[in-house]
């Protein structure tokens, strides 16, 4: 179990690093595309047809990818009053329970999200030719990553190993 956890921790941290870089790039792309839309529309008086649609799709990927980092950092908005009020044993049990709820929820979203994405193969973006699969896939990708992150947290709490200790007790 510890070896599995160790590999999972390493894998998740690589995923999070990649996601962090990708979210920075996505923000930059969003800014460039929106600014280009403004420039062409107001300065050159010749609106680009694709900027609105592209920026929306980038936003969806940003939400999906950036939230993986937030999840890995355990920074998602939550009310911590109950966990903070418990003894360390109770807190560990509660965290395992929360992780299991997150795993269950994310699995459902990943499963149905994947069929949503597959169904979108046949649909194309409206201002340029690209299957919408490449946008909707953001949902199952994010949900899949949430499952891995939550699994790490559940195992961390049950085996009492964590990232800081490098999975070694």
């Amino acid at each position, binding site marked *: 179990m510890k070896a599995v956890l160790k590999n999972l921790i390493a894998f998740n941290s690589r995923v999070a690093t990649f996601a962090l870089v990708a979210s920075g790039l996505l923000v930059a792309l969003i800014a460039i595309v*929106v600014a280009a839309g403004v420039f062409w529309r107001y300065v050159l008086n010749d609106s680009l047809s694709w900027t609105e649609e592209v920026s*929306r799709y980038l936003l969806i990927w940003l939400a999906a990818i950036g*939230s993986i980092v937030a999840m890995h950092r355990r920074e*998602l908005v*939550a009310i911590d009053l109950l966990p903070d009020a418990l003894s360390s044993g109770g807190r560990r049990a509660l965290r395992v329970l929360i992780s299991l*709820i997150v795993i269950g929820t994310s699995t459902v979203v990943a499963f149905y999200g994947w069929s949503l994405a597959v169904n979108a193969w046949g649909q194309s973006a409206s201002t340029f030719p690209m299957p919408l699969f490449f946008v909707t896939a953001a949902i199952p990708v994010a949900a899949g990553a949430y499952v891995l992150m939550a699994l790490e947290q559940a195992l961390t709490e049950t085996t009492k190993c964590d990232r800081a200790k490098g999975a070694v007790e």
Partner: protein
Amino acid sequence: MSPIFGMVLLVLIALGVPVVFALLAGPIVGFIADDKMIFLQTLPRRFYSGIDSFPLLAIPLFILAGNLMNTGGITVRLVDFAKVLVGHLRGGLAQVNIVSSVLFAGLSGSAVADTSALGSMLVPAMERDGYTKKFAVAVTAASSVIGPIIPPSIIMIVYAYVMNVSVSALFAAGILPGLAMAGGLMAVTSYLGKKRAFPRNERRATVREVGSAFKHAFIPLLTPVIILGGIVSGIFTPTEAAGSAVIYAILVGLFFTKSLKLSHLPKILTETGVTSASILIVVGAAAAFGYATTLSQLPVRVAEFLPEISSNVIVILLLLNLLLLFTGMFLDSGPAIIILAPLLGPALVNYGIDPLHLAAIMSINLTIGLATPPLGLVLFVGSSISNVPVSAIAREMLPFYLVHFTVILAVTYVPALSLTVPRLLGLY
């Protein structure tokens, strides 16, 4: 559909499940319990289409613009400008803190950014000047809620999107309440200053010093003019204005203040991405949750039930504010507004409350919730930059809460406070 999904949401949030998962788990349990498995496939679709929106692009762009301007040395110039304006008053630096918050509010849409940017600069300065650290943090936290009340405002973008009101009109609605709050906080500070003998700068800035500080702050201060002027005149959509603000902030930081380095960009971009994504997925999950809410006809039931409590608008608005304050004590403003607005909005509009007025009440009330214990993001940030415990900051803030609550009551019972500016500008 049975309302079990709502109970699941509340229980999970109370347990400490991240809000985004609680919003998704509620409908999942609800659909399974009602044997409507077929609806499960709608959840990812709603989640997706909930984020697929051009107006929401303003969120990462305004956060990016704020982060760029903070690193770009613009904050320092705003504080210097505030110093020559009000530094000579009793409690000078405390007043400077409040006025800086107002100036900063026109650049940034987030109270947390305000607390961390102004707090890390002004709290040490105030301490050197003889203020207690806890008072310095308290005045920073109390004034930073002005940030999302004066436009631009992330919370208002979210509200406008969820409830389908005009972002521009809602932005305009925040201007007077934000200024009123600043005035109230300054009056209280001045009163406390006399009572506790706060330091003051003996010498008033000369006209030349004011002119020089203004010259330094002028270019950065054009940002709110671009943002607001562009939106209010109808030239820009809020998203386009946010995009323009980003480009302007980069140009100012690189070429005018010269304190923005290209090497700062990776960190600014990635942190903007993570902050924005955390907000956006809650908006997406709320769209999925909202679908279950609609199916359950819960808003209709609330609309039928509320008149049984009271048919009096004054009483209902008071109850609304108490509910919002209570929610704001525990929940971040974004998730709170996303959950409560669709549930309560239709019922309250039935009472004849103007939708824009309601938008202003809810946005401002829940923004103040960021600074109320036990859970308030602004208090946490203030505590982490100063090492003063949250409880001590909150106690020190008591006189300022009085101002916050007065502004809430004024906005609630004097609709003109929020509606005059949008009407004058022809936005509403």
